């Protein structure tokens, strides 16, 4: 018993298209999305440690202070800002706007560059604040 209809039109395979940075930006939305799903584990661990009391939280603080965790957090923060910015870009597309070639390419650059900028600003502000509270 076959349930497939050979007359049904198929979209061309991905490999047929000439590479353009918008392709990378598109798959980056997925990659950052999956990365953030993994980051969710860290977020829930943080909440659980806070809920479990002071001893558990200070153990978690050591985990978060570890250089590897710091690098992961930097990655997660960029993944978050990119997924946020490109997500808004997708929502605008879903509303029917921004499909012109020039607009779609410009908004791709904008999403990426704003995400990089927000990541830098976020960590700069956080470091400044923590340095201020420590002194």
């Amino acid at each position, binding site marked *: 018993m076959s*349930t497939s209809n050979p007359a049904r039109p198929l979209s061309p395979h991905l490999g047929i298209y000439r590479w353009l940075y918008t392709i990378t930006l598109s798959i980056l939305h997925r990659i950052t999305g999956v990365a953030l799903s993994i980051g969710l584990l860290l977020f829930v661990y943080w909440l659980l440690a806070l809920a479990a009391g002071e001893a558990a939280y200070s153990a978690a603080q050591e985990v978060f202070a570890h250089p590897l965790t710091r690098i992961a957090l930097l990655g997660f923060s960029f993944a978050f800002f990119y997924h946020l910015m490109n997500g808004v870009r997708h929502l605008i597309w879903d509303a029917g706007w921004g499909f012109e070639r020039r607009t779609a390419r410009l908004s791709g650059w904008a999403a990426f560059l704003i995400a990089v900028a927000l990541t830098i600003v976020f960590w700069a502000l956080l470091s400044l604040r923590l340095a201020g509270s420590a002194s």
Partner: protein
Amino acid sequence: MSLRTPMGRVLGLGSAKEGAGHWWSQRVSAVALVLLTLWFVVALLRLDGFEYETLTAWAAAPMNAALLLLLTVVLVYHSMLGVQVVVEDYVHGAAKIVTLVFSTFVHVALGALGALAVLRIAFGGAA
């Protein structure tokens, strides 16, 4: 020319009218997360530090606790919908079902743990 499958033609049931449900859920949770995550990022930057007392006092304030609870639940929901789409695209056959069930279990567990943690902080259970 009909584009329906032979099976679809025989059954003649038409659309189940739920095809767009997943799509809409993903968008609506995305819009909610734009607001909730921006609140969370700004709140993190306005904290006086990440010491235990500072954080629990902040998270126990009713408005913060409510928003933190919403953030946790909507994050888990949006993540579950997203991972589902990715798995459906790249994993096939029996492995697809197994991966989807695993992902659903992990997400629901994370949602339960996260929500319980927020509530415990809010009600001062770990004082």
